[in-house]
Each structure stands twice: as C-alpha cells, then as structure tokens.
C-alpha cells in the first residue's frame, strides 16, 4: 500500500541577489516520498539538494509549485507560528556541523524542541534522558558539547531531532564531519528509525552513507535527474 508522505509538484525556488538579479535554484521538482522511506539526496554542489531539504523542512518558502505534507498543501503557509509548529512536531533536523548550543548540557540540548512544544520540565528531562540512553550516551547527559567527541555530538543532535517524535528526519550531510566508524553508527540509528515506519531524508556526498538508503534521488542544476537509483549494500 502506498502512503505518500511528501509530494512536490513542479516546485521552483529562486533567490534574489542584492541587485535584484534572480538566481533559480530549483527548477521544477516533482517528487514523491512514501512514509517509512529512507531517501538520500545526491548531486553536485549547488545542485539544490540543501534547498530542497530546507523547503521540505519548512525553513524555506518555495517560489512556485505545490508542496503537500500528509496530503495537506503546506507550501502556501507563510505564518511563522504555523511553520514553527510543523518544524516542531513533524521534523527533526540534523546538520553536518551538529549545531548544538555549547553553553547547554547534552540533556538541555536534547530537550530544547520540547520547550517549544510547551512540554513540562520533568516530562522533558525524562524523555531526553531516555533518548540519550537509547543512543549510548546515558553517561554523558551533564556534559556540554565541547566535552564530547564529534560522533557523540552528532548522536546528541539526533536525540534532539527525535525529541518530539517527528515523522521525518532531515539530515544535511550528517556524516560529513565524522570518521567512518561514527558515520556508520549514525546510519544504523537512521535505519532503526526507518524500521519504525518513519521517514529519513538525507543529503550526502558519500556513497558509504548513501548505500544505507532505500533509494537515491540525484539533483543537477535544480532538476531531478534520477528518482530511483540504488547502491549495493
């Protein structure tokens, strides 16, 4: 049974330079992603991978076209609180540079999304602790990011992304700053997430990471050149 989670219809996105010049980044994207899929986005730099990810994550507004999430047209939403709500409840972001707040402990970093979901303090801490334990960082809850290794920091970032139990993990080169062992651990966490019928979208340059995906979507010059490429595991 097909359960379409994300559907793009002829999505365009342009940036405008300071002198008013239009720079098209996405030029007519049609894409469908099923619930529970693990999709890798690949392609050369400047091809529009990150922009596509940011549009899916409601960090960017699209210029034209339609974006359906769970059948609802959310490409038309411009209200800050509504976009923040979608990001908070449906999305979990993971970045190449981790983007943890260094003045906060691992626990506080993980609990951050729940603050904006207005979840009470005790419940937040309990859930964040559980998440950190589940990814093997139960001993590190009081550590701050600078006291953790790159792999550990990225796992804290994943725990943060999972905090509000999102539908979709959006990962922008999650293994880019990690050694191969840590990278492998991250991919295994993504696979577990997929097992739970959740969706993972990952921008990556490395075939080692991409081979974990169900399929690879290639982008070039703002267009999709391949929808359904697969690498041998």
């Amino acid at each position, binding site marked *: 049974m097909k359960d379409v989670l994300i559907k793009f219809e002829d999505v365009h996105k342009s940036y405008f330079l300071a002198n008013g010049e239009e720079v098209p980044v996405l030029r007519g994207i049609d894409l469908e992603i099923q619930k529970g899929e693990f999709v890798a986005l690949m392609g050369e730099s400047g091809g529009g991978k990150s922009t596509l990810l*940011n549009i899916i*994550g409601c*960090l*960017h507004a699209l210029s034209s076209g339609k974006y359906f999430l769970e059948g609802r047209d959310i490409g038309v939403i411009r209200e*800050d*609180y509504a976009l*923040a*709500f979608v*990001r*908070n*409840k449906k999305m979990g*972001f993971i*970045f190449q540079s981790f*983007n*943890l*707040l260094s*003045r*906060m402990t691992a626990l506080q970093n993980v609990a*951050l*999304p729940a*603050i*904006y*979901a207005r979840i009470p*303090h005790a419940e937040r801490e309990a859930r964040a602790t559980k998440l950190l334990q589940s990814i093997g960082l139960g001993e590190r809850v009081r550590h701050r990011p600078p006291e953790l290794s790159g792999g550990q920091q990225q796992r804290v970032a994943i725990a*943060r992304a999972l*905090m*509000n139990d999102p539908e979709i993990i959006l990962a922008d080169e999650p293994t880019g700053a990690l050694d191969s062992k840590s990278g492998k651990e991250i991919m295994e966490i993504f696979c577990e997430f997929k097992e739970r019928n959740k969706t993972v979208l990952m921008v990556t340059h490395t075939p080692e990471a991409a081979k974990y995906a169900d399929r690879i979507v290639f982008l070039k010059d703002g267009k999709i050149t391949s929808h359904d490429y697969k690498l041998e595991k």
Partner: protein
Amino acid sequence: MNFETLKMAFEALLANKVRSGLSMLGIVIGVSTVIIVVGIGLGSQQKVADQYKNLNVTSVIVMGMRGRDSASSTKISEKDVDYVLANAAYVNVGTAVLQGNLDLSYGKTSSSFSVFGSSAKFFDISNLSLAAGRVFTEDESGNTALLTVIGNGVLEKFWDEGTDPETVLGEILTVGNKKLEIIGVLKEIGSSTGPMSYDDSLLVPYSTAAKYLLGSTTKPNLYFLATDADTVDLATAEIELLLRANHKLKAAKENDFRIFDAGSMVGAATDTATTLTILLTSVAAIVLIVSGIGIMNVMFVTVTERTREIGIIKAVGGEQKDILAQFLAESVILSMIGGIIGIGIGEIAIPFLNNLEDWYVLHSPISIFVGFTFSVLVGIFFGFYPALKASRLDPVDALRSE
C-alpha cells in the same frame, strides 16, 4: 513570557558574565545617580521647609534698606507698627523686632546667642510655643522689664542635658550688665538648618532690647500678620502704602524700606530647590538613557554572535515570539538587576553623603520606585529592537552563519 524563557535568558547571561556585568554597569550608575540626586533635591526642599517652618504663611516682613542707603535713610521704627495697625484693614497683628548677637552668661559659662527684642505678638507671628513658663505681657514689653524667654539651645548650653525647663524658670542670665530673669522656655524646634532658628535665641521685651541691649546698634524689622492667607497680597500692599504715608514719601520717591511676604520668600526658595531637583533629575535621566544605549549595543552584538543559536531555535520549532521574548528577557533582566544594584548603592551612599558637611540627602521611596521602573523600561525599550531583529532572522541564513 514564561519561566522557561526567563531561565534560558539567565543562562545565556551567565554564559557571558563579563559582558553582562559591563553592560549592567551603566544602569547601575544611572539608577544610583537617580537615587542620590533625587535625595539631594528632596533634601534641599526639606531644608527650605525647615528654614521657614517658623514663619507664619500670613506674615509680612518689613526691613530697612541694605547697602548704600542703609541705616541712615531707614526710618522704620516701632511707631510704624502702631500706625499700620491703626489704619490697615487686612493686618491683624504686628510687632517691631530688634535682632542681634550678644554674649550671654550664666555662672561661669558664657556664649554668644541671638537676641530678639519684640512684643509678645512675636510668639504668634513666628509660631513659637512654650515648653515651660509664660511669655511677657504687653505691659512688660513696654516698660523695659528685665525678663527673657529662652530657646532650647540656651537651656542646653547652660544646664545639663535633659534638665526640666520648669526648673530654670526664675534663674538669672547676664547680658552685658543687665540681669534677665527667665520666665519661659521655648519648645525645641530642632532640625532647623537655616538662619531662622530660635533654639539658639532668647527673646526679650522690645523696650528692654531697645533701651539696654540692641537699640544703639540695630534698627528694627517689622513683622505683621495678614488677616488670613488670602489677604496677604492686600495686606502687603496696604502696609507699603501706609508706611510710605507715615514716612511722608512723595509719589516719585522710592520706598525707604524693603517689604516681603512669607509666601513669596518661601516660594522663591522652594522654586530654587525645585529647579535644582529638576536639573539633577534630568542629569540622572540622561545617564539612564545613555546606559540604555549601552545595553542596546550589547544586545546587538549578542544577537550577531548568537545568530546560529537563533537558527537552531527556529529549526527545532521556536517561533518568532519565543526568540523575541528570550532576547527581550535578557535585556530586561540585565537592566533590572542593574537597577536593583543601583538602588542598593544609592541607598548605601546616602548616609555617607549625609556625614559630609552641608550635605542633606533624603531617602525617597519614590526615587526607588522610579529608578527601578525606569531601569526595567530602559531594558524593554532598548532591548526591543535587537530582539525584534533576532526574531526576524531567516532560519537558513542564521544556521549557515559562523
């Protein structure tokens, strides 16, 4: 704004203690300045009030000319009082007063005090009341009786502290070669800081002062009371006309006396004190505004530095209003703590300032309230724009920033 926002704001401020402290410093100085200068202003107003508290508001005072045209041309005398009282409609009471400093002795002690020679009416005019004994009668004030009513300062000078005023009645004080019997003691006036203190004075009948004590060296001033507070202006005009008539001044000639009413004297002094208060308060307000600009500057730097944090908060679902609230909370916490410290420093400084000579600074609950409120408002006002700028950052750009 909720508890989470406040907690995060606190943590963010604590993460950069030196900067938070420095940006708070302006507010600390601003608010402590407010506390101190408002205290100084109120102190000077209080000083004026103390100075004139023995001046009946309906009183009108006539003095001789000063300077070039002084004593020789001044013709005011106790006879003017009778003339005015006989002819004026709006004047109730009047007396001539001779005032001078004389050496006074009791036993082996001697000291200089102010001596006032007047009729008994002077007690009403100057709001004086007695702790013991009586005032001199009209008869006594006319027939050079050797009697005196002493101020509390005289009592304290010649007798032990805490001496019952009743016990000194009938004692004899020596002034020059005259011996004056004490018939009354004034209530202590206290806290008076001006020249009008009657604590260190003694009052004697006018004729006594004129004949034996001060008559050869001093000219009298005339004190009158208008019928009530509303007729002071009328009484003043009336007294002026009557004195001119009594002195036979032609229309073209200027007054050969000076005339004041208590209201305008107090008014002028109060105006000066008020002007001082306004001036000092404006200085403090400027200091506060400048410190607010300091906070704004720091908040801008903070927003720029924490752009990535703002991006992260947006990515995990923080709304614009969450970010606005957090940065606003930071600037308000900064300025509020600065305000509280400033109030503390100001209040601690006041007693020290009061120990300095000629300083008179008051504690004022209003300035504490105003200082605190103003510091919070400064935090809101100057924190708002940086916070707004933070909340409107594009999340993707913010995440990309280094």
